């Protein structure tokens, strides 16, 4: 009952203040990637509540118009058009998969509206296909791969096998890994490469093929269902007994938690050890999130929360909703996040949000990250000269 | 002149011989009946002549031209028409549209993408329908017509191609007996008038003996007799394998 009354109140309240609210358009593939995006949604909803409770932006509340983008670029572009032309949003944020992110980014440039790509990891969105309207929050494929390189080099393993989901994210993670490893450790060999289709790994056969390649170490960018199947078959067939594995994203609660007592120990991963981070910024976020949702945050929660704060901070700094001013505000925008301070680099619009690098372990039948450190994104980006060559604008 | 000549025609299916070294010919304007018990190979024979099936051995000449290897549509264009045991028409079209399709096909005008399909109200279409007594049903969809009427439409369809030889597989099957005689009379009249050779199969012996100029008899895939209706009726072997049963039924 009280819930209904509350939402009714909120609804009426929303109606009365809507004249002065600032609309932010949000679109994401909620139905296609729910495991990541439901926590993500809770994250940005928390941010919106906090921002509005604190008085909004220069006295104006923010209102998020959120849409499901259907998980494909064609529908996403139509949804974005709707947000732009029917809802008159001040800026766009969201998207998950690389192709959707790129399509919306491309539309943002055409329709001249600012777009904060929250989750897409593709390097292209800020480099080859970067444009002046698009900014990206998450540490990219390249950055997260680079974060794993120091540990990989320390092991001094020569024979590496690679397994990745066969689409842009996996392909570019693999390409970056090979390039960075070869630079850091001349003489490294890549002895086997497996590229199963996304979500359809034939794990038994892939694991056997990797065993046949006799690698000393494996670099994997599998996640979600593929990762679960890979871990189970690898454990059963003894692939991991004498082989170290580096797995991009493997420590993100979204993908780590389902592994439960099968979590492979000793793997190096990027991820989010949410219950061990003790910084005040994170503690504040953690407490607020748990209080609001009665659940612990996933990485998606942090991304959603931070993306919405990025939008709000840009609006505040710009002093209005003018696109040109928003772009000026986002360029070089400095702000605090649960992961510490970040900057949206003026040159390539990439934020310096970092990630946690550590090893997997089992604790009480659950997977956790141990020996972790925070890797600041700023330290894992290519130089301005290199970026300038990649970007065409 | 022979319209059609068949020499040593053979066909078997999975080791079972359906037609075995069959020889016969049809002269221009002649009505030739092919009779035989069920499974004697009549329909197979038709399908071989019409080009739906490929013979294992033997030759088929149409006006002294060897035609085996040609698909049915090519044989149709040479002047070899056909009706089926179960009347085959274009169910989604009206009677006149059916005939018009066949007529436009003859004129090689069916490939046109953007012109209107006007053939259905043409003079020739009407005349063809009138010839088979279906003028009053011209604008009714075939799906709504009675079976006997469909047989007539199919006959008109075949005539629209201006054939010089018509293969008619049981032209009166599924019709009431009064209707049968009428249709066969119609076929015979038109064939004689237009000098069309007709090769037909038929179970109704009355129809056969009344209209056929000549009769050939097939049993177990082999040709066992041929001649005028009177000769065939008198043939001892025919009586044994075929007419004997027939007589017993009657």
């Amino acid at each position: 009952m009280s819930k209904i009354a509350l939402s009714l109140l909120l609804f009426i309240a929303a109606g009365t203040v809507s004249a002065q609210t600032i609309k932010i358009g949000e679109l994401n593939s909620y139905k296609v990637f729910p495991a990541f995006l439901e926590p993500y949604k809770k994250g940005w909803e928390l941010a919106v509540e906090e921002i509005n409770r604190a008085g909004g932006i220069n006295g104006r509340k923010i209102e998020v118009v959120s849409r499901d983008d259907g998980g494909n670029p064609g529908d996403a572009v139509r949804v974005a058009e709707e947000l732009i032309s029917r809802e008159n949003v001040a800026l766009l944020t969201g998207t998950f998969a690389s192709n959707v992110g790129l399509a919306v980014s491309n539309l943002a440039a055409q329709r001249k509206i600012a777009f904060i790509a929250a989750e897409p990891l593709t390097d292209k969105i800020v480099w080859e296909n970067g444009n002046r309207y698009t900014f990206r929050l998450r540490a990219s494929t390249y950055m997260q791969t680079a974060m794993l390189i120091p540990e990989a080099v320390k092991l001094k393993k020569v024979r590496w096998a690679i397994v990745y989901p066969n689409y842009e994210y996996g392909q570019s993670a693999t390409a970056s890994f090979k390039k960075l490893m070869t630079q850091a450790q001349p003489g490294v060999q890549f002895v086997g490469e497996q590229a199963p289709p996304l979500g359809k790994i034939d794990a038994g056969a892939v694991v056997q093929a990797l065993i046949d390649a006799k690698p000393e170490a494996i670099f994997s960018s599998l996640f979600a269902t593929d990762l679960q199947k890979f871990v189970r078959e690898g454990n059963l067939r003894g692939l991991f007994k004498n082989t170290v594995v580096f797995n991009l994203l493997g420590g993100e609660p979204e993908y780590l938690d389902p592994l439960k007592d099968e979590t492979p120990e000793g793997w190096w991963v990027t991820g989010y050890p949410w219950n061990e981070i003790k910084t005040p910024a994170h503690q504040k976020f953690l407490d607020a999130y748990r209080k609001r949702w009665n659940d612990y945050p996933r990485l998606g929660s942090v991304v959603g929360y931070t993306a919405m704060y990025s939008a709000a901070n840009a609006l505040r700094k710009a002093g209005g909703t003018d696109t040109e001013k928003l772009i000026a505000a986002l360029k070089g925008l400095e702000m605090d996040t649960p992961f510490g301070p970040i900057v949206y680099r003026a040159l390539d619009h990439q934020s310096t949000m970092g990630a946690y690098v550590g090893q997997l372990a089992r604790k009480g039948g659950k997977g956790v990250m141990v020996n972790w450190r925070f890797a600041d994104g700023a330290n894992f980006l290519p130089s301005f000269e290199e970026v300038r060559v990649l970007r065409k604008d | 002149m022979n319209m059609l000549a068949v020499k040593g025609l053979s066909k078997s299916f999975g080791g079972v011989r359906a037609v075995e070294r069959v020889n016969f010919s049809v002269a221009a304007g002649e009505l030739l009946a092919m009779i035989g018990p069920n499974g004697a190979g009549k329909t197979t024979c038709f399908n071989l002549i019409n080009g739906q099936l490929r013979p294992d051995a033997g030759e088929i000449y149409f006006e002294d031209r060897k035609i085996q290897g040609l698909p049915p549509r090519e044989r149709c264009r040479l002047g070899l028409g056909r009706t089926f045991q179960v009347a085959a028409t274009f169910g989604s079209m009206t009677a006149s549209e059916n005939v018009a399709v066949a007529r436009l096909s003859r004129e090689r005008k069916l490939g046109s993408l953007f012109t209107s399909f006007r053939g259905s109200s043409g003079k020739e279409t009407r005349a063809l329908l009138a010839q088979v007594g279906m003028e009053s049903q011209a604008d009714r969809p075939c799906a709504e017509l009675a079976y006997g009427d469909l047989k007539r439409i199919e006959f008109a369809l075949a005539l629209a191609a201006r054939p010089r030889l018509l293969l008619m597989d049981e032209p009166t099957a599924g019709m009431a007996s009064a209707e049968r005689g009428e249709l066969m009379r119609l076929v015979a009249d038109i064939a004689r008038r237009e000098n069309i050779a007709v090769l037909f199969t038929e179970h109704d012996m009355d129809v056969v003996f009344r209209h056929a100029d000549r009769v050939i008899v097939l049993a177990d895939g082999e040709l066992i007799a041929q001649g005028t209706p009177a000769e065939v009726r008198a043939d001892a072997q025919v009586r044994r394998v075929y007419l004997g049963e027939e007589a017993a039924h009657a």
Partner: protein
Amino acid sequence: MSSSSVLIQFLNGLAGASSLFMVAAGLSLIFGVTRVVNFAHGSLYMLGMYLAVWLAERVGFWAAVPLAAVAVGVIGALAEISVLRRIYKAPELLQLLATFALLLLIKDFALWAWGPEDMLGPRAPGFTGAVEIAGGAFPQYDLLLIILGPVVLGFLYLVLKKTRWGILVRAATEDREMAGALGVNQRWLFTGVFALGALLAGLGGALQIPREPASLNIDLSVISDAFVVVVIGGLGSIPGAFLAALLIAEAKAFCIGLGYSQATLVIEFVIMAAVLVVRPWGLLGRMPVLARPGTAEPPFARPSLRLRWTLAIVAAALALLPVVSGGYTLVLLTDMLIFALFAASLHFIMGPGGMYSFGHAAYFGLGAYAAGMLVLREKFPMELALALAPFAAGFAALVFGWFCVRLSGVYSAMLTLAFAQIAWSAVFQWDALTGGSNGMVGVWPAPWLSSKPAYYFLTLLVCASGIIFLWRMIYSPFGHALRAARDSPLRAEASGIDVRATQWEAFAIAGLAAGVAGALYAFSKGSISPEALGIQRSVDGLVMVMLGGIQTLSGPVWGAALFTWLQDAAARNVDYWRAATGIVILALVLVLPRGVGSLLQARQ
């Protein structure tokens, strides 16, 4: 590969084949008897997985597997009784639409019941470890699966050969009307077969949980695999399904073993295409019994006066719309117009042509890609790219169509699907040319067309002209030849019509028109990615055509508009928009089995 790894990969293939066989056998049985292409079969498999995981936590793994299978069997029977039984007499392929609606409903049911996250099941007690085979470790459970596949095959063989019910099933598979004449109670036979098919799907799913987490995306991936297996094996043939499952699973295992893992994207479709070209009815299938006369399609009426007026008014309203409305309405209508042309092109071959295509998106997508490549790579002006791109699609349709018109019915439809998947994987994998999985961005119209009203007018003009051309063709001499070929191929051929050439030409024309729609789509979105020619797009096209009504002229256009609007409106306003769409489709199927377009199709 060493000999030990060859052996282990072979065993991997065997284990993979078992579960694939079970789901495919169910699909094959259902098709054989009821002639329903059950699109929801993958969903039943998915349901089996979820139920098994959920039950395993409560009653343990070994009790959960049979319980889940039986539960899915019951659900299948209920679906048959409540939905499919009502529409067996409806136009062919309407059942496909109904089962597609079931797919949507089951997907959202699973989302509602078990949440969005993948659910990994427990390992099977007693089979948690590995045994040593040829120096490698091989999971015990996989050995069990290897045995279970043939056991199920043997069980089905006995049921079909030795029981009275099985004999009836076989009789119905071979000749449905004959079985009806023998006094078989078709209703319960159909329900029974559907239940058994569903049970097999549920069993296949339940047995898979130790190897694979239950996830919401499994339904579509399983259904496409199962279709492929059934078609390769021969529709209705259970041993064929087994053989085909083995072939596919082994081919995949060895692709991976030999280091060509990328090929697993497409290998099954390549195999299917090859098999169908060489053996048109599958490995062990038989040529289907031809439909009896009298079951021909209904008359294809000329557009009624009412329809002509409606269309004229709609066209006028669309032309005037930008005066009163702008912004998003135009964006949505642009999408609707493009899909209307796409649906009309599919209808052109499905309706008058009688050829089913499960892969029509290939030509849509190739048109879009060609436009993108001409603009981005060749630097053609947009107008020229738009004019030329459809010919790429038309050319592809010419090549693929040559093979497809040599088959008929579901086999031909599956070959179109195979070609579409091959085209899709080429686009997906050929990074340098197509941009790979990301696709291409920056495919925008020329400046004078870039405003929304301008592009809308262009789309309206092109799509309306395209649709009018297609409709005129239906009533042209060529259109009559096409319908003649559909109504009675034998009669058409005996009347001098080249049936295959006519169908081939129609296929190419439809591909060309779909390519026009695709090129317009690319420029309206500014980007193009592989989804444009994916299975989902092909299915959308089918749904549009069938919603509108195959045997109506304008139906597909209304179907496209309705479906696009439904997707847009439902996705925005309803949490479970898939289920909502499913319910609307089901309601339409049951109330308006001849499609929305039939409302306007007054009898002459």
